[in-house]
């Protein structure tokens, strides 16, 4: 099972210092802090779900932007649901299902402006251990540092990971 975590990376790369990518972490306690925040800009936008006149847009690692699109000519940003380390979500019957680092969380979104975490299944998913859509050297993920919520360009010191060539 662990093998698949690393199937896209090499960790036997000799030490490298120079430009590359490194993980952005939040500690595991912070990663569980899910809730509403004021609308904010989309940083790394992803897929969308349309539920009646509400549009939900994924922001990788960050959460879900919710807008009222009852008038498609004038969409209105309503709220941002902060879900650290999110990569996927869906909606069904007033519930929102999302990954939250390794866990699956269920949110009651009946009150969109005050979502409630209903349940959490722990350690269901395997985290991505390399920067998506990137080719090159990166700082290996250290799972003891918490949850990865994104990747950033950095001057790396003694990096040991690179994407397979």
């Amino acid at each position, binding site marked *: 099972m662990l093998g*698949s975590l690393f199937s*896209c990376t090499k960790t036997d790369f000799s030490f490298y210092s120079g430009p590359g990518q490194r993980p952005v972490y939040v500690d595991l306690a912070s990663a569980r802090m899910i809730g509403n925040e004021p*609308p*904010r*800009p*989309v940083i*790394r*936008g*992803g*897929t*969308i*779900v*349309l*539920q*009646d*006149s*509400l*549009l939900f847009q994924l922001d990788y690692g960050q959460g879900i*932007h919710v*807008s*009222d*699109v*009852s*008038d*498609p*000519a*004038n*969409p209105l*940003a*309503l709220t941002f649901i902060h879900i650290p380390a999110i*990569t*996927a*979500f*869906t*909606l*069904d*019957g*007033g*519930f929102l*299902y*999302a*990954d939250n680092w390794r866990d*699956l969380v*269920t949110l009651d979104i*009946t*009150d*969109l*402006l005050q979502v409630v975490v*209903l*349940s959490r*299944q722990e350690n*269901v*998913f*395997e985290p*991505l251990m390399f920067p998506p*859509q990137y*080719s090159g050297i990166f700082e290996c993920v250290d799972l003891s540092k918490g949850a990865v919520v994104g990747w950033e360009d950095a001057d790396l010191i003694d990096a040991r990971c690179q*994407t*397979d*060539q």
Partner: protein
Amino acid sequence: MQPETMMNTSASTRMILFLLFGLFTGGLFSCAKESSLVQPDVKSGSLARFVVHQGYLYSLNHHEVITFAVQADGVPLLVDRLPLDYGLETIIVYEGLVYVGARTGLYILDIAQPGKPVMLSRTERSQSLLGGCDPVVVRDSFAFSTVKIINTICGQTNVRSALLVYQVADPTAPEEVGQYDLDEPNGLGYKGDVLFVCDEGSDRVVLLDIADPRFVKLLDIEVPIEDPIDLIIHGERMVVATRTAFQFYDIQDIQDIRPLGTISK
């Protein structure tokens, strides 16, 4: 009952639903669907990694489909893990079958026993088309999937990006019936005989004629938009998600696609 009377009944039902929705949601819903209060109309983009179908949540881990039974209180119960190859990217349900887009190809799963998906087929792509993204849409007995060039994925380097067409009349034996080069395609959707494909590489949504899925034709119509990722077709409207925003379009007349609103951040 006269048609006119039926329409009136339906309209007043909608009005009541609308009022109820307003009470529950503080008026966020401007229109309610006929179905019922607890079943809102949900449409997902083609890049979804989670999907709920008839009380079961199907989710993608990198190498497996994890199935949850959704209980009445909304709490999911893990009931199955189906191991597949590494690199699962997207999942949809179409007419009772699950389609999984993966970096190596297309999977079709049977969910006759919804808590226990079974693999019906796995259609591998040629080496030159291994790579990421892989959203799938299905219309009748044809599946349309894009492969997007990403420099290096799991040691495999794409040499090109394309739209792939599969004949899936027999889900145990899909047959690839077409390949069409695109720059850097992403999410897709269709309205009637027209397929809309996000082409991130060329900052536009391209339109293709899929009236005959074996002979897909690129239409001389495109919708310019920066970094399109995914899209949803909803009646006469299309919403396109980008890296930093979303944009609505009126697509009633594909010869005259009009931008509507965008979200201002």
